[in-house]
């Protein structure tokens, strides 16, 4: 059943028949509303990317221009330790390995989150360090449970909606 924009709508629930903000939720100019929402979301992502990058520069910049970022504190989450010695450990990045100085280096293949201050070329001094225990099995378990949850829930509630792709867009309809 389509919902036509008519002054005296026969369907009391039809959003098109109301004024005000309900116009945002009507079928009228549906594709333009979807495009506007997508455009605003893209603008939001771009603006956010710019603001975050200004306030929190990319970690890899320590390797590219070390003098500019000397003393700057960087934060990285869930990084795998690729090498370690008595006074430091290394992590891999897109611009090669980075060395992190700490009196308590974590073991190789462990996963760490840290705040570290740039002190030299590809070298940072750890300010705070957190070693994730069991990251190797907890992360895949997390993704597995999440995928099963989404698919399982959508399967369970599928009968609450009637999908009509033949109408041009996929919509739930009764």
């Amino acid at each position, binding site marked *: 059943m389509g*919902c036509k924009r008519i002054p005296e709508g026969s*369907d009391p*629930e*039809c*959003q*098109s028949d109301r004024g005000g903000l*309900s116009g*945002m*939720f*009507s*079928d009228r100019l*549906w594709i333009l*509303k*979807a495009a506007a*929402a*997508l455009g*605003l*979301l893209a603008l*939001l*992502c*771009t*603006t*956010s*990317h710019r*603001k*975050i*990058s*200004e*306030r*929190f520069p*990319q970690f890899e910049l320590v390797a590219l221009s070390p003098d500019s970022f000397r003393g700057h504190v960087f*934060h990285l*989450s869930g990084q795998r330790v690729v090498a370690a010695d008595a006074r430091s450990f290394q992590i891999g990045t897109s611009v090669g390995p980075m060395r992190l100085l700490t009196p308590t280096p974590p073991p190789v293949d462990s996963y760490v*989150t*840290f*705040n570290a201050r740039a002190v030299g070329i590809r070298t940072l001094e750890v300010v*705070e360090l*957190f070693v*994730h*225990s*069991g*990251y190797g099995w*907890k*992360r895949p*378990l*997390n993704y597995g*449970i*999440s995928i099963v*949850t*989404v698919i399982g*829930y*959508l399967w369970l*509630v599928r009968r*609450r*909606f009637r999908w009509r792709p033949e109408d041009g*867009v*996929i*919509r*739930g309809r*009764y």
Partner: protein
Amino acid sequence: MPDLFTHLVAARAPGIFVRDKRIQALLVIGTFMPDIAYKGLFWVMQTREPFGASTHSFVGALLISYLCCLFVEEAIRKPGFIALAAGGWIHILVDFIKFNLGAGSCRPLLPFSPAGVELGWIDPENVVLLIPIDAAILAVALLLERRFARVQQ
């Protein structure tokens, strides 16, 4: 990130007070959307973390919810939008519990402020260990829902 089962329970428990089953489903689907949008940008579009961070902001959740609600039938689109947005906001609030060394588990005030916010209660990787507790909460919620339904009948 907390697993989506934890997010489902966080939205489904208050969902027992939602009488329309379609709106209730949209509340739960709304709580999946920030992670689906973020991982979609990250894996499919190959974007960096700062680009997708706004999927876990209050404004981002509103925009994603509006986009999603356009795919719902017109008659329930407005309450559907409210349910999807509420689900998205519940997701962000649940993410606050994560510990991230003070850097913030998400950036909820984007695009106005890029500052991260966290309560820092739990290692994000350990949230998956809460699943038995989540399952117990879900079971209690479903029992209460069934009891409310009987009382109404």
